[in-house]
């Protein structure tokens, strides 16, 4: 946890670095943009439903990019959609995080060769923080991806977002 294993000196005073505190707050309430693209979106829905319960990591779908911290690119990105995703990304406030979920979003997946209308990797349009492989990834894999993102946020500095 980083923060809570620090010493409690007096009553309910916690001593921590401001950086840690902010990172802790940030990583435990990653609000994702409620947004699904393709097959992976169904696994994303399954992850947030009862069996896997995304909520316990503080992940809540928000329906507007202006209130979202993270966006999970869940599925194949086509050329027609890529420009829209770019705009959604630009509308999100900083700091913002991207999880690229599934092979299609990572690199084009099974559509890499003959997909005349498929963008071969979302990282050609927006920067990605965590790649989750799989077609589609299991919910556990997505949870692992989220934990990796949390690790990344935990080590961030206030001055500069680690790219």
């Amino acid at each position, binding site marked *: 946890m980083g923060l809570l294993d620090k010493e409690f000196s007096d009553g309910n005073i916690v001593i921590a670095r401001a950086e840690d505190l902010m990172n802790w707050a940030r990583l435990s309430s990653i609000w994702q943009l*409620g947004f699904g693209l393709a097959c992976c979106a169904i696994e994303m829905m399954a992850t947030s439903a009862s069996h896997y319960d995304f909520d316990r990591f503080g992940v809540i779908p928000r329906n507007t990019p202006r209130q979202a911290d993270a966006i999970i690119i869940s599925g194949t990105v086509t050329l027609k959609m890529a420009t829209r995703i770019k705009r959604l990304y630009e509308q999100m406030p900083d700091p913002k995080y991207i999880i690229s979920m599934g092979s299609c979003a990572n690199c084009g997946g099974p559509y890499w060769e003959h997909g005349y209308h498929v963008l071969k990797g979302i990282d050609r349009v927006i920067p990605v923080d965590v790649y989750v492989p799989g077609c589609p990834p299991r919910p556990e894999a997505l949870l692992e991806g989220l934990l990796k993102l949390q690790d990344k946020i935990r080590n961030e500095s206030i001055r500069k977002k680690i790219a």
Partner: protein
Amino acid sequence: MALKTESMILNMGPQHPSTHGVLRLELEIEGELILSVKPHIGYLHRCFEKHAEAMTYPQVIPYTDRLDYLAAMGNNFGYVVAAERLMGIQVPERVEYIRVIMAELQRIASHLVAIATNGADIGALTPFLYLFRDREYILTLFEMTCGARMLYNYMWIGGLSHDIHPDFVRKTKEFINHFRPTVVELNNLLTFNKIFIERTANIGVLPVDTAINIGASGPVLRGSGLAFDVRREDPYSIYDKLEFDIPVGQGMVGTVGDCWDRYYVRVLEMEQSLRIIEQLIDSIPDGDVQSAIPKRIKPPKGTVYGRVENPRGELGYFIISDGNLNPFRVKVRAPSFVNLELMGELCKGHLVADVIAILGSLDIVLGEIDR
């Protein structure tokens, strides 16, 4: 003097809270009233038909999984039925039995998502959590059989990729016992819920002749009162030996062919699927599931249109073979593609909030619309 007014254009999507994927609806509205709806699709156009031309016949099957990703078994089924008809392959009884059981389980899983998202879209989030719990049960059965949760590549031309797990029969029976009470629970929770009925009854009424002319199929057509089911109409596999009813919309709480009817047809269909599984599960014949798979899949020159009843309606594959290892052309008749054409017809004269109820009741999957 009358005040000059003009209609307003409102965009819904392509990024939209309702969980049906990347669809953009262009609504022309006057206040809250909808004058016209124009769907814009293609945001998930993954070039399936181009891929099919570049792959050999068995290699196409994983791509069919990704068409209607909520009903991947059904997609496999349609493709192999068409390809087997083209090649004149007879598959063993055991394979047919397992295929039908899988397709019916998939129908339940798919309808669960349809019902859950239909409810969630218009504000009932609780059934969503309940139904996804039961869907996980079916996915476990599939995972046990072929190792994948969603996209299976399970049915091959002439056979299956894996035989069923020794525990499969027992677990499926367990599932049936577990699921029967869930349907009752669902009816109490959502189907006869006053608010849900208010939101869906008498909304988006589809007359049966319009439905046929536009080419609607599946629960959308049956909700309008026509008992048309490809499983009965044009039997494939062993459906002609099975007993099941075709539920149709009856206007129980509103007009025949409204959103509630389409919804309720799905609920009744799940029970029929359970009935089909029960008829088969105890009598799966022995045999080898891979014995009929040809060594070299090279169909003769010709064309075939094979169709099956997918959860969303009539799924057809039109395959042209020029005698090579690759199909010359594969065209998919996607049920959602045709059903979505109804949007403009159904939404006219309704309010903005009803658009989501209507869209939910059509139960579209963008993967097969855009292909």
